[in-house]
């Protein structure tokens, strides 16, 4: 429509969303940039000062190198898993088991893999010392961080690539077979090229996750392998150097934004991928593109990774149930007793905030998704981009920017539950927004026009037609918000207070105080709560999808 803002409902909705995004996304970032580049006048002091320092210079290089390595390793592993689950004709239980294990790192609190690796491969590690008797294994530094981040983030690549490979039209491969190509050739000339955009996308997603990762390097990187997020954190909490912290954030912001924009461009230029979802489920042939030898090889690699992940989590579980894993292996519930006494406040606070996030963030996600996908107004693309900024940027940047923006009157909000909820809503609603646009893409716009033609205003149409139809997306969005609110630390560590604490912060305290048993008990609790939430959401999702609605995609995709 040419004059859309005549719509009496659209205009206020757009203004409201813009105002929220301006205040909680753009304003903090502007404050961050001002502090970095304004010292009684425009100045590059803060940045040049950093670059002169060895630690900060190598932090930049290390962060980028680590992101590339984790991106490569994570994507390769994800591709192997995706091929195995989609193409190897595994029995249903095996696929479900793989999915369940792979889900673990995605929904765990951030330090889990790192602690587990210390238990397994540390100086007195269960595998390195007790099984193999090695004493010179050094888990701290690049290799430990790389291993831990790869184990943590390869599921992102797996979920992305699984969808990509599953959506490749089997007829294309079949026609290559019919033209006389053999398996390897079909894979090389048809399957792989078709999956390439998805592979590139997965690489960028995993790299971005590694670049932003704050928790793993904090535990495993050590002093000889500094990276940007932890340096920024230490600059502020250790040295109380806000300007230095802001400048480090800027160094981190540039590559993070570059990856984000690159990924968006890539997706848009390729129209998402070559894969088109026609919605026609024809006679899908049994795909036979993997040779038995390839299946065995993939099975070995994936089996090893699954075993490693399982060992990690078993170690955490064990550590939470004994006095001191490796030193005093007598059964004890002392750690859990602590969680449910001294730690109870953090658990309660986290749950309250996570539950508050769900309806607020869910509604925000759906409204934003609807505005972006189904309406026309000036600045629509800009709004879409701005709303994604907090998601795309590393949490450390967002946290420090919030600290700068909301620490002083009139907006002295740090330490309140409000700012924690706001932070999560603007950081983690994107999954819901994407799910909403995905669902809307499957719904003919004529359905909304039909509502309008029957006399319904835009808000009535939204409430009575759009909202019920995007229920699966709303549910997915709310579940992701809950999971993230239960497990996030990088942004909110700057915003917690005595009044409002978080379980993840207690886990970090446990680790820094060398009370790993306590940290493990907290982690187990979070994992249990999140698994419960996922189970409930999956059940509800099946009920919703069993109706007449389109799929909302994977719960955790994006």
């Amino acid at each position, binding site marked *: *429509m*040419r*004059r859309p803002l*005549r*719509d009496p409902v659209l205009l206020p909705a757009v203004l409201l969303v813009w105002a929220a995004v301006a205040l909680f996304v753009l304003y903090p970032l502007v404050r961050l940039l001002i502090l970095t580049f304004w010292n009684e006048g425009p100045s590059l002091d803060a940045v040049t000062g950093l670059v002169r320092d060895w630690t900060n210079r190598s932090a930049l290089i290390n962060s980028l190198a680590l992101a590339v390595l984790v991106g490569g390793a994570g994507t390769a592993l994800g591709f192997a898993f995706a091929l195995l689950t989609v193409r190897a004709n595994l029995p249903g239980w095996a696929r479900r088991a793989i999915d369940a294990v792979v889900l673990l790192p995605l929904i765990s609190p951030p330090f889990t893999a790192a602690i587990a690796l210390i238990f397994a491969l540390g100086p007195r590690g269960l595998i390195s010392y007790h099984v193999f008797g090695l004493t010179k294994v050094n888990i701290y530094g690049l290799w430990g961080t790389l291993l831990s981040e790869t184990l943590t983030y390869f599921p992102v690549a797996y979920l992305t690539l699984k969808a990509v490979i599953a959506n490749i039209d089997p007829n294309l491969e079949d026609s290559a077979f019919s033209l006389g190509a053999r398996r390897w050739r079909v894979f090389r000339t048809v399957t792989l090229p078709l999956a390439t955009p998805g592979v590139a996308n997965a690489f960028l997603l995993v790299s971005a996750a590694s670049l932003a990762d704050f928790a793993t390097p904090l535990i495993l990187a050590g002093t000889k392998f500094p990276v940007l997020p932890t340096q920024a954190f230490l600059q502020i909490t250790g040295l109380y150097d806000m300007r230095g912290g802001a400048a480090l954030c800027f160094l981190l912001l540039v590559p993070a934004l570059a990856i984000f924009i690159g990924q968006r461009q890539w997706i848009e230029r390729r129209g998402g991928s070559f894969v088109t979802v026609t919605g026609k489920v024809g006679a899908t042939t049994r795909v036979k593109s993997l040779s038995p030898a390839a299946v065995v090889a993939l099975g070995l690699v994936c089996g090893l990774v699954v075993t490693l992940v399982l060992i990690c989590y078993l170690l955490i579980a064990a550590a939470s149930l004994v006095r001191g894993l490796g030193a005093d292996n007598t059964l004890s519930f002392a750690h859990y007793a602590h969680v449910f006494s001294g730690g109870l406040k953090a658990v309660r606070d986290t749950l309250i905030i996570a539950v508050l996030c769900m309806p607020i963030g869910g509604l925000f996600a759906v409204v934003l998704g609807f505005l972006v996908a189904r309406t026309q107004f000036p600045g629509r693309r800009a709004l879409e981009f701005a709303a994604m900024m907090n998601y795309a940027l590393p949490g450390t940047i967002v946290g420090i920017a919030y600290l700068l923006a909301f620490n002083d009157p009139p907006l002295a909000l740090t330490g309140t539950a409000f700012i924690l909820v706001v932070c999560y809503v603007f950081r983690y609603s994107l999954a819901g927004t994407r799910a909403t646009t995905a669902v809307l893409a499957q*719904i*003919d716009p*004529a*359905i909304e*026009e*039909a*509502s*309008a*033609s*029957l*006399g*319904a*205003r835009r808000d*009535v149409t939204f409430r*009575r*037609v759009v909202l*019920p*139809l995007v229920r699966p997306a709303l549910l997915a969005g709310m579940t992701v918000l809950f999971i993230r609110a239960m497990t996030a630390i990088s942004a909110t560590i700057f915003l917690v207070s005595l009044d409002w604490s978080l379980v993840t912060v207690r886990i970090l305290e446990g680790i820094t105080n060398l009370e790993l048993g306590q940290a493990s008990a907290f982690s187990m609790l979070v994992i249990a709560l999140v698994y419960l939430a996922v189970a409930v959401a999956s059940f509800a999702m099946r009920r919703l999808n069993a*109706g*007449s*609605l389109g799929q909302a995609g994977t719960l955790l995709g994006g």
Partner: protein
Amino acid sequence: MTTTGTRLQIDHVSKRFSRVGQSTLAAVDDVSLVVEPGELLTLLGPSGCGKTTTLRMVAGFEQPDDGRIYIGDQDVTELMVYRRGIGFVFQNYALFPHLTVFENVAYGLKVRRVPGRDVDRRVSQVLELVGLPGYERRFPNQLSGGEQQRVAVARAVVVEPRLLLFDEPLSNLDAKLRVQMRAELSRLQKQLAITTVYVTHDQDEAMAISDRIAVMRQGRIAQIGTAEELYRAPRSEFVAQFIGRVNLVEGRVLDVTGGRMTVALWGGSVTVAAEPGCAPGTRLSLILRPESLTLVPETTKAGATDVLVLGTVRSRTFLGEKVEYTVEVAGALLHVVTYDPAHRGVVDVGARVGVTCSAAAARPLTSS
């Protein structure tokens, strides 16, 4: 349930779409027409002719760049869709997938805050009307295409709209069902007497269902009239070709007297109504419909009221109740249709034949 029809007037309406990196495209270019109360007018044309855009502007889904649209006495050009009091039937029905048949049909009534008891009554009435009583609790995905179509119609008419708009409503149905549904739609529209605009690209459908047809081409109305008028007196080659099949044969005016003119054709001549501006010597196109032509043995002589030409049969399509031929005549191809082949026999490809045409069946292509 009866609705007194409302008049629709479209007054010099234009709509341009801007294309990326190119000039704008006039999808609808200065279209004016009036649909009388209770009338069913069809917008007919090939894809991209602007018929759907015109319909969507009447509905209010698109805003015209120029011109006004009136429903009754009200200027609705600036009015939002939901205030126009229309019923719209979409090509793919656009039933709400999350609502039952009852809820779908009741939707417009509930939006209008009609009391619950009246909603129940009117929904069952209209479901009765479209032949779906007892379907209230089903979901759209449990219905066949034809049933979905009926629900879509029921949903549109139950609110007693001032105007009923159809956007290619039958194009998703199979051929047999299409014929059946168009008869039902026609009956329903007559019964309810709601002023209706119907968009289609199917000329059979347009001719079967319409009171009048507006043939559109490149954003403009090429010709408007009843099916018979358009068929008998097309004013352009485009309309002649679009409404039925046609042979356009060039002839030369021999003589003009008293409102009639004689035109030379195939070595004979035909007498047709005189065209303004035609003088002896003017060349013009004559319309010969395939069914007006007859195949005769090669040796036949032209009768007093016939013209005759010799040619060779180049192709033959047997369609049961009729046979379609193309006959090559002096380098040009003529379409000829003969009926009742079982009785009259068929002619083989390659045969030399005569083609006759009754002089009374020829019409000049009027240019005015």
